[in-house]
């Protein structure tokens, strides 16, 4: 890249950038490319794609605004940032939809070409915010992105209307200059994605370079910025989203267990990317089945598990509703089954593209009868890899369905991930039954499908194909040991207890919940799942103010780790932040009689660190 006017480069520790535009403007792509070049630069980062459920809401309207927020830093960070330092707004609707979360003093970079009367009216502006004084608290840069893009694309061989579509690359080029990102990864990506002889590649390349040059040469910006590499642990890194990590974790788990992976799934936002990713992995022997409905998704997975495969189904809340009946059957059959629920806002169709943690009690209790199921909850996008493996380990070892509670925020959010040394992950033993386990009164060896392992209380997994082990299982209550149908009252009670004790007993092999303790702390903040980043960032801020606070985070929500009761008892005050109306807090209150304070938010967006900080400070001060 040619060097233009020499400008000062200021060093920043961190910056939060929010790209916002119309659904068709390619903001997700723009954010994603910026993220990748930042990852390659060695920044720590966290992303928050925030898009509408509609594929293309009417252009220029508030409903159609799609945004991508990325937080980059030269130190380790935990959230996509509470509030943007920079908002890139491609049209008036994008400005209007996002300005509410942009703090005073922040920078706005707007595509001035899109601020015509018609677009302003569509966004609901009666005047032009750029010409009245409503944005006086911000530094506003007006850049004619559309016209400059059209100008440089004239000779790219694309039609003028198509040229206009490259304006997101102009914006990307400009922001890349402003934050001194390397340009090569993006140029290479454009060529790889569109093909070197494709006019679209040429247009995007020209627009990207033009944006970069504009920053450099226009006398608009007084300086640009650098955010240096963060001090990471040595190792090899990649950038990963939660859904991708989960899919890869399932692949790794299947390999660790020596099992074939079968995914029965029905497309649903925000879980579908797991189905997409695994569908591409035929070379791993993965069988993916796009079922006729959610019920068939889980049914086929259970059928595969009966046959000795690793049966998995992936869904979101509405699908979990439909799968409940089959999960209950799996509880009764005592077969391994993985149910991934990528939670979204509910009830009903709710907010398909927004995150919520409100399926916890559903996962816990959403089946008729006494039907306990272990629950695993990843805490960050990359942690989905490990969570998937641990879920499979529990399912296979204990012959039980396991529910993994991810959410839309983890699913689509990205972070750097230090690649694990796969050889250090303990294998998983399916321990298939291979011979009779009992001898009849007349001396004939027989197979009893409900004999239990004394340690795990798990029954044998005996897929069809082994002579002498033929047996029938089903949803009707089983007689202990034989598995025959039994209506005997005492047997039913015994079986209910067996199943409950088996799941409760998993706690014996779970790691203790770790406490990030500070001497003198009177408040413990307890979380689960995707609130980890915001809670940890909030705790850091509180400590930065010289206050004492302790933090613990649950990766296993059912059963609870054995030491949780003792940990909760250590602190006079417990705060439980959740993106629901207080579901974990109900569980710990019921289980441990602890007077937990519930901090709730149900706006379809994650907690901000400041909100956690504020609640902790108030609780310490006795005003919450």
């Amino acid at each position, binding site marked *: 890249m040619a060097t233009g006017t020499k400008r000062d480069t200021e060093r920043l520790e961190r910056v939060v950038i929010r790209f916002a535009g119309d659904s068709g403007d390619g903001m997700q792509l723009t954010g994603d490319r910026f993220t990748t070049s930042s990852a390659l630069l060695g920044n720590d980062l966290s992303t928050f794609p925030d898009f509408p459920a509609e594929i293309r809401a009417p252009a220029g309207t508030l409903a159609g605004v799609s945004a991508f927020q990325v937080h980059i830093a030269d130190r380790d960070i935990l959230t996509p940032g509470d509030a943007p330092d920079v908002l890139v707004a491609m049209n008036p609707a994008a400005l209007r939809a996002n300005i509410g979360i942009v703090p005073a003093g922040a920078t706005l970079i707007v595509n001035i070409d899109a601020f015509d009367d018609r677009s302003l009216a569509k966004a609901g502006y009666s005047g032009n915010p750029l010409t009245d004084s409503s944005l006086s608290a911000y530094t506003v840069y007006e850049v004619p992105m559309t016209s400059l893009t059209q100008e440089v694309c004239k000779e790219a061989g694309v039609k003028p209307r198509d040229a206009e579509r490259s304006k997101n690359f102009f914006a990307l080029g400009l922001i890349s200059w402003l934050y001194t990102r390397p340009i090569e990864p993006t140029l290479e990506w454009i060529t790889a994605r569109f093909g070197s002889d494709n006019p679209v590649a040429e247009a995007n390349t020209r627009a990207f370079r033009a944006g970069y040059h504009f920053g450099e040469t226009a006398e608009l910006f007084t300086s640009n910025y650098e955010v240096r590499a963060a001090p990471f642990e040595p190792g090899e890194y990649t950038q990963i989203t939660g859904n991708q990590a989960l899919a890869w974790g399932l692949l790794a788990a299947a390999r660790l267990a020596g099992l074939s992976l*079968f995914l029965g799934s029905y497309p649903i936002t925000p879980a579908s990317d797991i189905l997409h990713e695994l569908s591409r*992995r035929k070379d791993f022997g993965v069988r993916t089945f796009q079922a006729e409905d959610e019920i068939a998704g889980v049914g086929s997975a259970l059928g595969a598990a009966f046959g000795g495969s690793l049966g998995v189904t992936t869904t979101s809340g509405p699908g979990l509703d439909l799968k409940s009946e089959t999960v209950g059957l799996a509880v009764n059959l005592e077969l391994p089954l993985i149910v991934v629920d990528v939670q979204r806002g509910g009830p009903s169709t709710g907010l398909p593209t927004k995150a919520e943690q409100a399926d916890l009690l559903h996962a816990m209790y959403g089946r008729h009868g006494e039907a306990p199921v272990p629950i695993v909850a990843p805490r960050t996008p990359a942690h989905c890899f490990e969570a998937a493996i641990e879920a499979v380990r529990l399912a296979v070892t204990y012959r039980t369905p396991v529910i993994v509670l991810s959410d839309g925020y983890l699913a689509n959010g990205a972070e750097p991930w230090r690649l694990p040394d796969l050889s250090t992950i303990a294998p998983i033993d399916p321990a298939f039954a291979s011979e009779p386990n009992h001898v009849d009164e007349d001396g004939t060896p027989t197979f009893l499908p409900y004999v239990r392992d004394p340690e795990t209380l798990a029954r044998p997994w005996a897929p069809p194909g082994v002579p002498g082990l033929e047996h029938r299982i089903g949803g009707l209550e089983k007689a202990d040991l034989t598995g025959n149908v039994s209506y005997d009252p005492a047997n039913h009670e015994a079986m209910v207890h067996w199943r409950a004790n088996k799941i409760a007993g998993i706690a014996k092999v779970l790691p203790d919940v770790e406490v990030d303790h500070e001497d003198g702390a009177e408040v413990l903040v307890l979380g689960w799942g995707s609130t980890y980043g915001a809670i940890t960032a909030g705790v850091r801020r509180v400590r930065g103010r010289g206050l004492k606070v302790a933090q613990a985070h649950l990766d296993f929500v059912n059963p609870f780790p054995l030491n949780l009761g003792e940990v909760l008892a250590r602190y006079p005050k417990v705060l439980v932040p959740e993106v629901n109306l207080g579901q974990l807090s109900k569980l710990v209150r019921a289980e441990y009689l602890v007077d937990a304070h519930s901090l709730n938010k149900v706006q379809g967006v994650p907690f901000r660190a400041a909100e956690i900080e504020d609640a902790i400070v108030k609780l310490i001060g006795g005003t919450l």
Partner: protein
Amino acid sequence: MTAIPVTTRKDWTSDQEVRWCPGCGDYSILAAVQMLLPDLGVRRESTVFLSGIGCAARFPYYMNTYGMHSIHGRAPAIATGLATTRPDLDVWIVTGDGDALSIGGNHLIHALRRNVNMTILMFNNQIYGLTKGQYSPTSEISKVTKSTPFGSIDTPFNPISLAIGAEATFVARTHDMDRGHMQETFRRAHDHKGAAFVEVYQNCNVFNDGAFEKITSRDARASMLIPLVHGEPIRFGADLERGVVQRSDGHLEMVEVAEVGEGALVVHDEVREDPGLAFALSRLASGPHEPTPIGVFRAVEHPEYGEEMSRQIVRAQERAGAGDLEALLRSGSTWTIE
């Protein structure tokens, strides 16, 4: 692989007491299956009976094979996961008209159109038995039951038409009063590659006794059952005096052979790719009170779903080698921190 052991009905019979109502048509179907299996050249340990819920769904408990009594209507979905991951197994589904066509209708049609390797025996008694006598999706219109005291107003399904409409590659009908016919039909269904659908007219002597008597009783059969034999003109009657012809508008009708001549009769062609004739045959009788075709309506060779799924895996591995997890984790942009 050792030779397939010689077995008898006893080997295929579990130690569980059969608990259908005395006189239920299910007994004769169970006997037909248990007596047929020793002749099919299959292994007990490689045979799986799956079911949903209903009287028929108790069937797996009585078979000394692997089995699962699952949930209402879901057996085809569960069988799809099993059959596609375990092509070495013989997967049978035993279901009823309520299980297969009401709560499980969606799974049935999709299993059929995908052509997943499974043999579906649907016992049709035109009534809900296990829940004690409500009308079913195959009950005739105006049926008076506990839940329809003023008569049902629903148009019933024609299961054979439904299966053909769902792209089924094997569709047949038999009845519980004729063991030989059942066994021949089940054998054909078992040997079919892909999804095979068999409707079995089955008498529920408690809640819908005699529903098929007009056509299946010993003295009615000759005149009321129209046997479908591939490659043969379709005719029936004690002296084969009646037959089926196709009118110029495509409609099938029953005629006296003497009046039209044998050459005018429709010759049954179960392997015809176009399902039109099979569908027309399924519409020949409006219910089991007039001459009704039995036998194999349609038996065509289509790719089997599990085989196709496996083929994609083999091709992907031939192209790219067996999946390398270490390489996959590095398939995006990576960077190294020293």
